[in-house]
Structures are given as structure tokens and as C-alpha cells.
């Protein structure tokens, strides 16, 4: 296997999938979500009389981290490869001299880069609107922590939704179930059962990043356990995804 060819090919697919995500009609949805978050941020800024970091952390985590992030990742992650299988445009890539792992990683990198950029744009726009009203003193750590959590969430959710898109013909149904039932419902169960939801681990990380707000008081897993669990989840999802992709036929 020629490593240089594999790397160049992977980067070509990364660029290609980034373009595909950005020029798809679904980008309209991103703008709508951005407008929603900006509206909420603007409304929030008019409702409080002084700078309330806690208020921002609470609504931004609920809206961005635990709703917009999984929804956006689901929409793009579950359609990126699936759409190409359906419209058969994957033929060009599947008949290239790239091993299936390189192809899959290329798609994955493209997905996480693009979704991360989208999430940063969505969050930043709301952040600017909210704190623009009061000034940005002491908000750098909030901004940085959200960016870190969003990127980690993107990496984790993307690995899941890409893998699932190879199993189901209509992966969006699984995505809707996962986001609205699994994550939002089971993820908020009392006791240990919530540990099967990804957002439990994002909350756990958030509890170590924020000093105020609901996230700061979340009684979650340790940073070490969270890191190991999320890393294992991504690794297993990627390996499964690559195996399915490798042995899948493209008629």
C-alpha cells in the first residue's frame, strides 16, 4: 500500500466532503438554527439587567450542546455517505486505489471539520449578541469551554452517525430516535442509566470547565473515565464503520 497515495487521497475526500456539506441545500437549515440561537441570545440579553454568565451558560448548553449539536451532526453525519450510495456518486471514490479505511477517514475528517466550523459560527453569533450587550470581560473561558465541548461532541456524534448511516437505508429515523429519545430522555434519567447517553459525558466534562451554571454542579463521571469512555466509543464506532464500509457492496 502506497502511504503517500493513501494520504493524498484521504485529503482529497476530506476536501470533497467539506464542499459537499457546505453546498448542500441543508445549509439553509443551519442558517435557520443560527437565527434561532441568535434570537434566543438576543431575547436573553434583553431579559437580564446585568451581565449574567450563568444564564448564558444554562441556555447555551441546553440549546447548543444538547440540541443543536446532535441535530446538526445527525443531519450531516447520517447523509454524507448514504446520499452518495443512493445517488451512486460513490462509484468514483469506491473504484479509486484507496483502501476503504482511508476513504472512510477522509469522509469523517471532512464531516467533523465542517460541522465544527458550523457549530463555532452558530455559537459565536449568539455569544456576540448576548455579551455584546454587556461587554466581554471574563467571558473568554466560557467561549473557550463551549468551543472545546462542541468539538468533542462533534467528534463523538459524527463517528456514531456515520457508522449508523451504513447500516440503515434511512438513518435519519435512527438519528431522530437517538437525539430525541436516547439523548434527551434517557440522558436525563436519574441514577446510573444516564451513563449510556453521550450527553452525560459532555455534561461531565462541562462540570469541570464551568464554575457557574447548571453544568458546574452536574454530578457526572470523572474526567479520566469520561475521556476513556468517549475515546473508546469513537474508536469502536470508527472500526465498525470502516469494517462495514469495507465489506459493503455498491450496486
Amino acid at each position, binding site marked *: 500500500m*502506497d502511504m503517500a497515495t493513501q494520504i493524498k*487521497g484521504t485529503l*482529497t475526500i476530506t476536501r470533497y466532503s467539506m464542499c459537499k456539506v457546505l453546498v448542500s441545500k441543508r445549509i439553509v437549515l443551519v442558517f435557520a438554527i443560527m437565527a434561532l440561537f441568535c434570537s434566543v441570545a438576543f431575547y436573553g440579553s434583553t431579559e437580564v439587567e446585568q451581565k449574567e454568565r450563568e444564564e448564558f451558560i444554562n441556555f447555551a448548553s441546553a440549546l447548543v450542546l444538547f440540541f443543536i449539536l446532535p441535530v446538526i451532526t445527525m443531519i450531516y453525519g447520517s447523509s454524507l455517505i448514504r446520499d452518495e450510495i443512493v445517488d451512486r456518486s460513490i*462509484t*468514483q471514490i469506491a473504484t*479509486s486505489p484507496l483502501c*476503504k479505511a482511508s476513504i472512510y477517514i477522509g469522509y469523517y475528517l471532512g464531516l467533523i471539520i465542517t460541522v465544527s466550523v458550523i457549530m463555532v459560527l452558530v455559537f459565536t453569533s449568539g455569544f456576540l449578541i448576548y455579551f455584546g450587550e454587556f461587554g466581554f470581560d471574563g467571558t473568554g473561558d466560557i467561549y473557550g469551554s463551549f468551543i472545546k465541548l462542541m468539538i468533542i461532541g462533534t467528534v463523538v456524534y459524527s463517528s456514531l452517525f456515520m457508522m449508523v448511516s451504513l447500516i440503515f437505508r434511512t438513518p435519519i429515523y435512527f438519528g431522530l430516535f437517538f437525539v430525541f429519545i436516547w439523548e434527551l430522555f434517557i440522558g436525563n434519567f436519574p441514577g446510573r442509566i444516564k451513563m449510556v447517553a453521550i450527553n452525560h459525558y459532555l455534561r461531565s466534562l462541562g462540570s469541570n470547565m464551568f464554575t457557574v451554571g447548571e453544568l458546574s454542579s452536574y454530578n457526572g463521571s470523572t474526567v479520566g473515565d469520561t475521556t476513556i469512555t468517549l475515546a473508546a466509543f469513537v474508536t469502536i464506532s470508527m472500526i465498525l464503520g470502516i469494517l462495514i464500509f469495507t465489506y459493503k*457492496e455498491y450496486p
Partner: protein
Amino acid sequence: MNGPIIWARDLSRWYGEVIGLNQFNVDIEPGITGIVGPNGSGKSTFFKTLTGLIRPSVGQIRMFGQDPWNNTALMRDFGFCPDFDNLSNEQTPRDFLTFVGGLHGKGGEELAKRVDEVLDIVGMGDAADRKIGGFSKGMRQRTKIAGAMVHNPKLLLLDEPLSGTDPLGRREIIDLVKKLHRQHGHNIIVSSHVLHEVERLTHQVVVIYKGRAVAVGDISDIRGMIDKHPHNIIVESKEMEELAKRFVEMPFVVSIQFNPDRRSAIVQVQQPDEFFNAFPSLVEELGCEVDKVYSLDDNLESVFRYLVGW
């Protein structure tokens, strides 16, 4: 390499209860080879198996002596132009070829030069930076063919490249395919459901029907087999009975069957070329009017049915 570039033995592929290929056996030698068969006969399934996009259900297939399934090294040796349009309307041919070149690990000056070269070969140099969305079917096909050859493969697999093109576009693609073999040394396997189109490209054909290779070899031999098969010709005329009396005197006419209105008949002939040669002078001699004359067997389906002995 000596021996066949493609080799298949007892190759079968099912899609649930639908048979794509059925004990397909073939040896394809270097050069241009035409795969001819009606729609749904298994041509595209053969290409998909050949390119490793699908696995055979049973049997074996080899390209350059290697199994194509999940064989990434083999992907360098062929370029595939599928039967469907996989081009983005927003891209230019240069964008598309640069992307395909990138998939083959090429980049920079070397790739840019190769892209220009390939675009010139397929006659798309002038349209290199125009959006594909505004292209004719023929231009799109030539762009797809360029995509198949950007990495300079030994073998080009062109699945229905003439499909949907106008007569001028067809002629350009036929000339291009011949040029790619003669001047650039590519081995080419090209599929079509139109026998005479393939005949203009090559004499080496594989006739495929219902997933089986029913005839393999020189097209003139296959044509000979077809011509020996009794053809059914419909003749419509007000003087049908007069015509029929003369038809029975022709040695190559096997039978005549009148339709109920007795103004048309099905004439079964052994040598259709002889019949069509003799027919105009007969009509002139009798001074009769002929409304229609056409061969019921002039479609590939009947030819293939004959070849498989149905």
C-alpha cells in the same frame, strides 16, 4: 501480459430473486471488446463485478489475473466510466478531473499537466473551465471518459458511453474510443445495447442475454449466425395476395401467414438480406403499392432469443 485481460468462470450474481449474471463465462483479450445485450441483460452487473463494486454470488472473475473484490492495487490498472451521470453540474471538467486525480494520489503540476492533456485528448480542452451543468449529453460523456483515463490506466471500462447521445455525439465518442486504443494504447471494454454501434467500434464482441454470454467472438461470425435464423417480416399492401404468390416462388421464403384483414402478412425468410434486395424490383414489376415493410426481428431481443435457442 499474455492471455486474457479478463477471465470469468461460472460467474453468477443474484439480487434477491433477480438474476444479474448467470453462469457467465468469458475470456477477453487485449484490444477493444464490445459487450452487447439488451437493457437488463447483465452488462452493468458484469462491470460492477469487474470493478469490485459488488461480489459474485458464485464463480470467479479475474482482471489481469487478480480478483477485483476489495483489491485497491488493481484499481490503478483500470478506469471506469459508469452508465449513469455522476457529474456535478456546479463543477467544471477541470475540477472533476483534479478531484479524480487526487483520488489516485496525484497532485500539483504533474496532475495539472495531465488534466490538460486528457481534456485535449477527449476534445474538451476548450470547455475545461465551463460549468458541466451547461453541457450536452455527449460532452458529459466525454468528461466522464476523461475521468476514467486521468490516471492513465491499462484498461478503460466504458458502460453504455453512447447512451442518450445524439448522432453527432455518438460519432464523436466512437471516434474517441478508437483513438484511445490506436493512439494511446488503452485496452477498452465498451458496452452497448445497440449491435451496430458496437460494430463500428470493434469486431470483438461478447453478446450477453439474461446474464449469460450467449456468443463470444468476431462480430461477422455472430452476424452470420443471426442471418441464418429465419426472420419474420411484416408486409402491408392492398395487393397482398399478388405479392404473396410471388413470395412463395422465392427460394429463401419459408412461409407466409396472412393476417385476418388479408392486407398484411408475416413473411418468414431464411436470408433477410436477399429478401430485401429482391423486394424493390418485385414491387416495381407488379406495379403494386406497399404501405409498410419491416422486420419483426430487427430488434436485439429477438436476436438474443435466437442465440440462446428460444
